[in-house]
């Protein structure tokens, strides 16, 4: 048992952090905010070149040949940096939609009645079936070309709360179940849970980032003659932020290794809670400045809310986790450890 990142994994993570620091610094973040989250295609291609989308494609298919644990590290960095775009959908579309792996195409996804992100700029949309009962297989189908144009035309643009994520309402459209351009059987049963896990990784990155921002502010902002971080009320908010982040991190990393649906559900629930509540507390610690557009904390909060409502949502996740409990839990317990048997995870294409 070795629950430490390998040297390669550490290098991958710091490489991604360095890359994002170079190609998506704070100025570019705020520029993206000012243009309402509209994508920078050259940045998208840079991500593609860095293997962000092709990460889990086999090397013989032009990919990097890594697995979910590595993907989770990259998505954590993306969450930290507030990197915009349908990252999860495009990553999952690598190998299915031509050009996705290279960052040449932008692929978004529609599932349930959640609004669709970045639809106007998408080159393809993955349509994921309605929320299935726990453990059941779900397929995803992709729309491009004429079918995509019809889909977009029927959707309604929404004035999005999240300035980094343009949204369309496509409820009525998705319900009419447009003819698929392409079936994607490879993803059956996996798409939704992998999407949830990668989204959880973004939440984790955001939760860690807002913790750092809160600590940084609390250590430098002075009121009543001392840094506000010297006051227990502030200090303890920060401590609770870390105490939400670290269990979520353990859950996300473990779920990436095992690929187990129940473990992914747990990871999503805890990462959602950590991202949302940490952003809230970070805002509170920033006081009035936290309420301004200029501070980045609202960007974290709004995206955390949006991600929490995506893929595995609170109610469905809780039910899945409840169904797992007790003698009636569907799968047999591992004899080696509390938890599911370790399944082969990884390769999404």
């Amino acid at each position, binding site marked *: *048992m*070795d*629950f*430490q*990142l*390998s040297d390669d*994994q550490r290098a991958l993570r710091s490489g991604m952090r360095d890359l994002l620091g170079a190609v998506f610094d704070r100025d570019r973040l705020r520029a993206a905010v000012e243009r309402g989250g509209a994508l920078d295609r050259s940045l998208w291609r840079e991500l593609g070149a860095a293997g962000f989308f092709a990460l889990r494609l086999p090397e013989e298919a032009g990919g990097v040949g890594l697995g979910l644990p590595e993907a989770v590290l990259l998505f954590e960095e993306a969450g930290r940096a507030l990197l915009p775009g349908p990252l999860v959908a495009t990553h999952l579309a690598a190998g299915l939609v031509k050009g996705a792996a290279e960052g040449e195409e932008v692929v978004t996804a529609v599932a349930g009645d959640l609004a669709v992100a970045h639809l106007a700029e998408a080159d393809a949309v993955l349509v994921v079936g309605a929320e299935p009962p726990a453990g059941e297989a779900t397929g995803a189908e992709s729309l491009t070309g004429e079918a995509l144009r019809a889909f977009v035309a029927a959707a309604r643009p929404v004035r999005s709360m999240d300035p980094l994520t343009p949204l369309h309402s496509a409820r009525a459209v998705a319900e009419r179940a447009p003819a698929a351009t392409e079936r994607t059987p490879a993803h059956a049963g996996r798409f939704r849970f992998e999407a949830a896990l990668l989204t959880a990784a973004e939440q984790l990155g955001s939760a860690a980032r807002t*913790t750092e921002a809160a*600590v940084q502010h609390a*250590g430098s902002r002075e009121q009543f003659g*001392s*840094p506000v*971080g*010297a*006051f*227990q009320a*502030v*200090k*303890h908010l*920060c*401590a*609770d932020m*870390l*105490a939400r982040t*670290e*269990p*979520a*991190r*353990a*859950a996300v*990393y*473990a779920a*990436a*290794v*095992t690929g187990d649906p*129940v*473990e992914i559900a*747990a*990871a999503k*629930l*805890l990462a959602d809670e950590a991202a949302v509540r940490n952003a809230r507390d970070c805002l509170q610690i920033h006081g009035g400045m936290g309420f301004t557009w200029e501070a980045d904390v609202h960007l974290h909060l709004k995206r955390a809310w949006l991600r929490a409502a995506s893929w595995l949502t609170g*109610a469905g*996740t*809780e*039910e*899945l*986790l*409840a*169904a*797992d*409990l*007790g*003698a*009636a*839990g569907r799968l047999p317990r591992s004899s*080696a*450890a*509390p*938890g599911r048997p*370790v399944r082969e995870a990884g390769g999404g294409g």
Partner: protein
Amino acid sequence: MDLAYTEAEEEFRRRLREWLAGVLPGLPPKPSPDDWPARRAYDTTWQRMLYDAGYAGLHWPVDAGGQGATPTQHLIFLEETERAGAPYVGANFVGLLHAGPTIAAEGTAGQRARWLPPVLRGDEIWCQGFSEPDAGSDLAALRTRAVRDGDDYVVTGQKIWTSHAEVADWCELLVRTDPDAPKHRGISWLAMPMDAPGITVRPLRTLAGSTEFAEVFLDEVRVPVRNRVGDENDGWRVTMVTLSFERGTAFVGEVVACRRTLDALADEARRNGRWDDPVLRRRLGRLNAGFRALWRLTQANVSESEHTGVVPGVGGSVFKLRYSGLRQELYEAAAEVLGGGDAFDLDREWVLDRLSSLSYTIAAGTSQIQRNIVAERILGLPKGR
């Protein structure tokens, strides 16, 4: 990252499991919670069995008589014994996890030879005399005085929250040997024989109605100077050393037990119909996520400790903060599962546990103190109040 256990680890688990399956059925029945001599006998018998089978002091260094096992092996040991329903460490707790490791790290060769083997064999048990009525969260404010008189210290004062005091052979005692020094600097660590004249033990009843703790009154108790471990006035540092034996495994058994309880709650709710309440059901689902994460966090801490040799002691505060709160939530959910008719019946399972769980946010550092530790020592926020 590889959550699979190595072949050696699996072999360790297999052997342990076989051994447990062989010996557990032969154990005597558990003694009554209020019969302290019987509890001591039961716990030390179990310790002797572990000793004979080569599991005593699993995590202790080999040169202290231990097995020098890896943190992961220790995790497996704690997990398997809990799952098999083996006895808890019980009366051997202080000897195995506090006093023993302290002596192993800081004692002289003679002190190690005198005190360690009886702990491993289950021949002697220890209790802890650290807290005082006015020194709880602020432990270093302790006031029990030890005055040198020839080859003895003469100790007077009062200790509190001492488990197993009635049946212990030894007490690891913190005393103030220099009242004029800054509070962390005037403390010494003594091994006090519990049969020395001047010691009065008074059981302390908890809100659960049991007497898990005692007050220990010390009236001019003579403790030989040779029983001091470490230098005079260096006892605070000596005590902190104990922590270096904790390698992320402190709560392994408890997390496993909580997960088993959660499964049992789901079964009971399905049986009595309360499973139909989605509010309760979803609450149990959230608890499942919480305890799964704590299990994974335990593995991560153990793994980190194994890799780096560094104690995840401070990260332990993050763990304890979450765990203590979650354990209380677990038993609140248990009360909901039982319902109004049974949740107040002390003979029902979980009802006493609900009461006991109230101590988790207080004992061994309140949640308020844990948050200070996390904020100041991990996050680097400035000291203050």
